[in-house]
């Protein structure tokens, strides 16, 4: 017999409520229940990083969290990364400028990881960026463009902070 559990959470500022089985991962909840398919599911066991989202501001794998555990939390997915005026987030802009993507499958996870990390550390070294994205697998780019994009985004974020813009 399957018991259903009520889950209510906020994604990108919007409240979602549903009754789900305890075994539904947060990644499946985001994609199938909420219809937010920007979050990608790759390995489904916490290795590839494609499903990385932000939970209460911290980057986490949504495939190794169950939706029932996320009752009441605030999530941000790649759909919520851009500004409210539709302008690209510095990380998104940098991915575009630096050829940080080819097929795009790993991109949402990469961007959610990098964006969360740059909030903590807006002046990372190249080595720190490489260690950071060691948890996200990309099979097209060879990572060079992604590393360049992360460093360019870091610079853009630092500059916007010194100019007093959000």
């Amino acid at each position, binding site marked *: 017999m399957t018991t259903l559990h009520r889950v209510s959470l906020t994604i990108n500022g919007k409240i979602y409520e549903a009754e789900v089985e*305890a*075994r539904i*991962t947060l990644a499946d909840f985001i994609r199938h229940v909420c219809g937010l398919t920007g979050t990608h599911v790759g390995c*489904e*066991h*916490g*290795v590839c*990083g494609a499903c*990385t989202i932000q*939970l209460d501001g*911290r*980057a*986490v*794998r949504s*495939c*190794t*969290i*169950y939706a*029932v*555990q996320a009752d009441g939390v605030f999530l941000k997915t790649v759909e919520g990364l851009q500004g409210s005026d539709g302008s690209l987030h510095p990380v998104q802009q940098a991915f575009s400028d630096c050829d940080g993507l080819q097929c795009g499958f790993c991109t949402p996870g990469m961007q959610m*990881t990098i964006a969360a*990390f740059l909030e903590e550390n807006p002046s990372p070294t190249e080595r720190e960026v*490489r*260690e*950071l994205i*060691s*948890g*996200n697998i990309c099979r097209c780019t060879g990572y060079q463009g992604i590393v360049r994009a992360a460093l360019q985004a870091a610079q853009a974020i630092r500059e916007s902070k010194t100019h007093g813009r959000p």
Partner: protein
Amino acid sequence: MVTVLPDAKLLAGGQSLGPMLNFRYLMPENIIDLNHVEDLQGIQQDQDNTIHIGSMTRQYQIQKDPLLTKELPILSDALQWVGHYATRNRGTLGGSLAHLDPAAELPGICALLDAELSVQSKLGVRRISIHDWPKGFMQADLNENEILTSISLRPWPEPHGACFLELSRRHGDFAIAGVACLISLDDNDRVRRFAASVIGVANCPVRLRQAEKSLPGERYSESLAIALSQEINLLEAPADAHHSGDFRKRTAKTLLQRAIQQACADAAKKRSLT
């Protein structure tokens, strides 16, 4: 709940149990989520300087904690190697100890520091030395009706050097082998106290007791470090698809030689600061 529910599995950060459930490796009847139990989280130091870490304290919290980075820098050094940025945001110290992967860094550091583990059931609290905690391959001394609640670590009182080194195929992957060393020196650069643990080369973390007895009283030399590392030959290292047991041992020996050197240099630096 642990006592009442049949076939229940405790869920900590979910960075190991989550994948096992997703793979249908394990299919328990019940999962008990510990993530909202606030009493299992936090870092405290008591009057005799022992530091108590709640089992559900997340790895990123330990890595960033100012008290721990000051008193037990080896812990944050090793945490850089534990999984990845996003997994450390969820993964916990207690979860890593209960899972007890032979290549995991945190059990190795706890073994190095002679950690004491507190385990609670309805009957009361049981305290276990980390050295008695592994009962076999990935099997901790934790009964079905018990929860690992906290981990107690005692920092070395004197200034000392620390070094953690590891080799893995990709940063954040399971270690092929890893070593952790603590060394304190007297005023004549002779080793006063030495502790070393190795991960990835046996069923559970191993302390190098012979080397720990032999090094004190001596000054560092490369030939001495090479001689001490031979103790690793005695271990029965597991093989997998990528690495033979012998390769793991050779790796561990080289890492140990480097770690002894670096920990001695670090110890000399720390001593000059005091």
